[in-house]
């Protein structure tokens, strides 16, 4: 009797989810990390999708739009499982979200094999910008090394001669390092990649001090940034050596930095394709509506990407006259990308990655709220370096 219960309960619980399909709805499956400490980004992105949904009036190409969110738990196999569920059970027309390259690497093939259009809203898996590019694969964010390449250029512009590089010892961390080394023209006086289990940089910081660089490049996203920047100040380096970061200071964690009173972050530079004060009408509306939706926060670039991802899909559906099943027409519409992007105008390369500007951004304290502000354009119309490896 028990065994029946044991087996029947999960089956019943799963079957309880209605699978009857409402006619002619356009369904978008969104896989994000909504648990674990990494959910700090995922939750912002979810809110941004909802803002985009509101801006679209809950419709795409005249048809009702449904967003289905799933949590990948920061695990590739879970991400893949959720993607399968979205494809096979919920029968979504599009898949988007995907913060992490490993989750994307496991999940994207499922969607692409099923003939779905897949839009990465964050993970900048470099293989998909080059060798593995696919006609149905779009990226509404960036390729991993683009941003750090822009940083290298910015360091040249700012006259940094001796640079110390600090990153994490995993794929994205190495791609960031490769990016900055590709464009930075001065000397790299030291380089350390620490394992992701480390939260204490005592050894590395001592090496930085000994090397006496005139700039430190860091890639320490999320909680690593919190810990690293704290220790940077404790070692007194904030007074001597300016910090240049990529993906380590953003709208998602600035409120946390502010809460922890990490004042030395103010004035530091980073690079990004977007900033909340980028001057265009779409962006202004997005930033304002996002704040209303999400704790009064200023959106991060994650949120901006999520917003653009859904708008990109909407542009495709619109071009196909509301027929989401007509993948060719949808794709063509998406390639043209005729929609109001938070970046101003957006355009895609043949590998379906954005060709876009990168800006130098600085942390400022405006009206008591820490935020990122555009300083200057560092590079214009930048495309991933591996674009020509794409045979589309």
């Amino acid at each position, binding site marked *: 009797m028990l065994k029946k219960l*044991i087996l029947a309960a999960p089956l019943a619980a799963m079957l309880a989810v209605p699978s009857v399909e409402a006619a002619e709805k356009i369904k978008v499956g969104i896989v994000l990390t909504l648990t674990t400490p990494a959910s700090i980004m995922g939750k912002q992105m979810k809110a941004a999708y909802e803002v985009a949904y509101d801006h679209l009036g809950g419709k795409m190409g005249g048809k009702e739009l449904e967003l289905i969110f799933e949590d990948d738990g920061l695990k590739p196999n*879970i991400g893949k499982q959720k993607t399968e569920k979205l494809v096979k059970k919920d029968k979504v027309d599009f898949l988007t979200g995907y913060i992490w390259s490993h989750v994307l690497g*496991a999940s994207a093939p499922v969607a692409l094999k099923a003939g779905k259009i897949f839009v990465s809203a964050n993970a900048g898996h470099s293989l998909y910008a080059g060798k593995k590019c696919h006609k149905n694969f779009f990226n509404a964010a960036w390729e991993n090394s683009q941003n750090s390449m822009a940083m290298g250029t910015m360091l040249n512009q700012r006259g940094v001669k001796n640079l110390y590089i600090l990153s994490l010892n995993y*794929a994205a961390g190495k791609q960031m390092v490769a990016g900055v080394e590709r464009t930075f023209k001065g000397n790299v006086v030291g380089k350390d990649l620490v394992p992701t289990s480390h939260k204490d940089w005592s050894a590395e910081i001592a090496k930085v001090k000994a090397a006496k660089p005139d700039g430190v490049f860091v890639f320490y996203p999320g909680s690593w940034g919190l810990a690293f920047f704290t220790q940077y100040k404790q070692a007194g380096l904030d007074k001597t050596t300016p910090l240049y970061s990529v993906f380590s200071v953003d709208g998602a964690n600035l409120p946390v930095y502010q809460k922890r009173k990490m004042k030395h972050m103010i004035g530091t530079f980073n690079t990004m394709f977007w900033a909340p004060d980028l001057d265009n009408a779409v962006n202004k509306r997005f930033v304002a509506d996002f704040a209303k939706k999400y704790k009064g926060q200023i959106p991060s670039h994650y949120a901006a990407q999520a917003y653009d991802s859904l708008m990109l899909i909407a542009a495709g559906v619109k071009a196909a006259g509301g027929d989401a099943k007509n993948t060719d027409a949808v794709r063509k519409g998406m390639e043209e990308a005729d929609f109001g992007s938070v970046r101003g105008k957006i355009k895609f390369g043949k590998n379906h990655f954005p060709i876009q500007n990168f800006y130098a951004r600085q942390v400022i304290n405006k009206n008591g709220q820490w935020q990122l502000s555009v300083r200057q354009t560092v590079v214009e119309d930048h495309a991933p370096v591996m674009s020509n490896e794409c045979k589309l």
Partner: protein
Amino acid sequence: MNLEILKTPRGIYNSLLILLCIFMPWIAPAIGQDFFTDVFGRIMIVAIAAISLNLIMGFGGMISFGHAVFVGIGGYAVGIFASHGIESAYIQWPVGLLMSGLFALIIGAISLRTRGVYFIMITLAFAQMIYFLSVSIEKYGSDDGLTIDARSDFGIPFYDLNDALTMYFTVFVLMVACLLITRKMVNSRFGRVIRAAKSNDERMHTIGYPTYGYKLTAFVIAGMMCGLSGLLSANFEDFVSPDMMFWTFSGELIFIVVLGGMGTIMGPLGGAIIFLLLSEVLSNITNSWHLIFGPFLILVVLFARGGVEGFLAKFEKSPEAKS
């Protein structure tokens, strides 16, 4: 096969588990839940890893807290060869099995010199070491993992792992083979040595068994069986990443074995089905499902020792030997 087994609750339950696995590809579409076939494919692959863990833990008393590492090694054998364009199963599979066996030999040789708590912690530490090593190898994707474009090629006409049903039943057949091997082995002379060593290792020495070699052999066999799970996982998921050897997965494997019924042949399969369905259901109910799952795990440990098999065995009249 006789029908005797259907006379006990355990027998019915065990038969049901197998039937569920056989017919899921037809049950799932019939109830409009196609994706259940994938879920069960995945369950059976995890079950193979759990069966191999059960072999050393349930029968041999070796609590390996790093078992997931062998799933990773098997998986990477497929992934690394595939990334070099070598898709032949006759290269991928033997190498995958040999490498998992070799790693098991090295890890086992050091870990088995110690006992009890030391063994648990050392296997965990080695698994973490290999995990970090795999994360630092950029050539093979680092933590991004490797997407596998083509599944293992056996070069047999009409046998293609890309076909979903072929893949599913390949997994099924191999899982059943692992169950049979376990059953055969635990009742063999070798298996008795392993089981007796679990029961009383010191006595084994004094009646003339140098148990180290036997335990190490069992550890290597289990490592290879777990490597098989990895080979299948890589093909089934078309993807490998260091994540598959993270220590929490080793912990989950232990739980699966205990939940199903440690030291029973079919326990790991039942445990895998219940565990994976439960986590699926719970994660659909709430994102914070660990809040429910953690206490559930504790309750199982405190009040349901012997797992499902142990519970069902209580309804049996005569205490029969473990089959």
